[in-house]
């Protein structure tokens, strides 16, 4: 976490009481049916892109979001997508289903101004994680998974902010604490933490177990440090990639008030087989990648 917490903390418009009530009444969103349909097409022998395109086009904001994704310089296509069908052809079904998940998650949770920057930070971390996955060329670290993971990793924070008005102060203290794990501070106040809540949400969205476990343990140093911690190797790589991505974002956007990199950084670099001296080069490369995310 925590680039994200910074953003949430820096902007605190008073939420209207009525709006607050309506947020509290909100049910935890299930995974949108459209993702299941796309997955079903992916599983068939000859996927029907036209059919998937029609499904996506029904939801205008989803269609617009997908076209924007395809045109993002991150993917480096020379052609520009003008329709959902173009975007589908360019991205393929796998990336499409992940992009749809990203857009839907954002739509599903209420989107008042203060969460807007939260999602922005998540998107940066997601793109940078998947870029790191490509850079390290680790066969157990799949770039698509790293992207999905980056988006969902901190979604627990969004839900806790909606449900618990006092959570904002807890976030501040968790960010500042140099001794305890981030989640330990949250547990003192609420007997739960954003990693656990995020894991529950990811399960609710039928994400693969490796991603759910990586969300659950992303502040848990012993789980990522030891190969026999019970956490699958692929989950540990996901945690390492996203924590490193977050650190890079913080470096490039002018530092942060958080302590996570000092607690987890060395473990992450070791897992990714990077040295601290590799970081400056990564900062430069990442800057170009981040310029493509808005």
């Amino acid at each position, binding site marked *: 976490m925590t680039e994200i917490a910074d953003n949430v903390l820096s902007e605190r418009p008073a939420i209207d009481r009525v709006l607050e009530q309506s947020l509290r009444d909100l049910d*935890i969103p299930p995974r949108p049916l459209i993702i299941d349909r796309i997955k079903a097409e992916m599983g068939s022998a000859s996927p029907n892109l036209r059919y998937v395109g029609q499904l996506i086009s029904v939801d205008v904001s989803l269609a617009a979001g997908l076209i924007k994704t395809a045109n993002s310089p991150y993917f480096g296509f020379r052609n520009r997508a003008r329709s959902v069908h173009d975007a589908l052809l360019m991205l393929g079904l796998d990336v499409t289903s992940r992009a749809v998940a990203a857009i839907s998650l954002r739509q599903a949770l209420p989107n008042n101004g203060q969460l807007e920057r939260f999602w922005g930070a998540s998107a940066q971390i997601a793109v940078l994680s998947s870029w790191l996955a490509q850079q390290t060329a680790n066969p157990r670290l799949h770039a698509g998974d790293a992207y999905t993971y980056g988006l969902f990793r901190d979604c627990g924070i969004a839900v806790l902010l909606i449900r618990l008005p006092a959570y904002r102060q807890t976030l501040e203290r968790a960010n500042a604490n140099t001794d305890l794990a981030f989640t330990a501070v949250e547990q003192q106040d609420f007997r*739960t933490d954003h990693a656990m809540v995020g894991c529950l949400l990811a*399960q609710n969205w039928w994400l693969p*177990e490796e991603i759910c476990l990586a969300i659950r343990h992303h502040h848990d140093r012993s789980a990522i440090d030891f190969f026999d911690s019970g956490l699958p190797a692929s989950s540990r790589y996901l945690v390492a990639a996203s924590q490193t991505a977050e650190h890079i974002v913080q470096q490039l956007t002018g530092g942060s008030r958080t302590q996570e990199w000092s607690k987890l950084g060395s473990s992450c670099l070791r897992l990714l087989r990077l040295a601290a001296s590799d970081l400056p080069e990564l900062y430069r490369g990442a800057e170009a990648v981040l310029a493509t995310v808005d």
Partner: protein
Amino acid sequence: MIDHPYRPPPERPQRYFDTMPVADPLLDPITGFLNRKAGLRAAAILVAESNTSHTPLGAIWVDIDRFRQVNESFGHRGGDRVIALIAERIRTVVRHQCEYSRTGSDEFVLLVPAIDHADAEQLARRLLVEIERPLRIDTILIRPSASIGVAINQIGENPIALLERADRAMVEAKRQGGNRLVMSGDEPLTGRLGVHLAREELAIESALHAALESGGLRLDFQPILSRDGRVEAIEALMRCYANGQQVDPARFIPVAEKTGLIVRLGEWSLLQGTRCAARLCRQGTPTKLAINVSRAQLLSPRFIQALHGALICADVPPALIELELTESLIMDLSETVQANLRTTREVGVGLAIDDFGTGYSCLSNLKDLPATKLKLDRAFVGVLPDDRRSFAIVKAMTRLGQELGMIVVAEGVETCTQLAALAEAGVDASQGFLHARPMTEDALLAWMKQREQK
């Protein structure tokens, strides 16, 4: 005179070496089995025969467990005696035509022509039993054991490959702790989450992952009615579907336990159950929801965080949630489990003991458990009202539960006469087909709404 062509060699003193019989270059002197070199040659011949005659050939690799300790305690002579005695036992067990060989200090390989998978397994089991019998060396009784790997040759396989498969199976048997048998092909493989699984478990694991990633889990709901007809609670029952077919819990639960996926299944139920409780609240029919919890979940130090996470996500008062524990769970109340159960109660979440009466729970554990509800196993209910002894037990258990401050519920009520007998026994509430079958969430919401309007 012709000299005799033969001249005796000059006399020399007899040495110790000369008293030894000449060793057969093919046999192991201690066991009389073929030695390693001869054993390999025999394997080559038998495999070739088996390949041409298309009859199976079994390779049984026997490795004596902890043999180094025997050598260290009794010296090499003692070790040799143990090997000789075990070789004798092996010879008595095998009634098939067989080539015996000793391939290493504590290793034997048996090659059995014309034996199939099942017979070879049976033979290897008999070997295990026979080798395990206590054995006397000097005045000390030791209990030897062996790890056995068995491979049946596949037509066209070369002898080295066959022996390697038997050896790998033996190594696996050793890894599992020794004194056991592993058939080649049954060695565990690594599953997706890095856990060792047998071949058929691997298939179940991948079906489970498929279910988890394609929305293959579902909760069904069954109401529990109190004596006066109110809905006392609703139990959530998990169903698992893979590739459009329901998966039998008896098949997937053991694999889920091994891989740790059981925690995910439990937490998924927890969140969906609390969400359903919240929906019931929102439609104006707040009802207690009972969610099943597994042993693995309660053993996890993060159980309380998961419970609170679900309560907060769903935004539901803790008093509307009840966790159901199976009786087997209370048999073994570890520190973590007890602490988790205590905290659960402190928060205000209820605790029910499921399927009570048929397991082995002892009453002292019942005393220590902060449970709020006791659910009597359906086995007692099915035989009511005719079985007076069952009736007496139900009555006594009901009294016991109520005296401990619990609500007592009977499971599996199917007829009106059963219900009347339960009322007579003093049971507080009941659950079963008589009241309602398990139904989907939407059906439940409608069912509750309809009752509300009446």
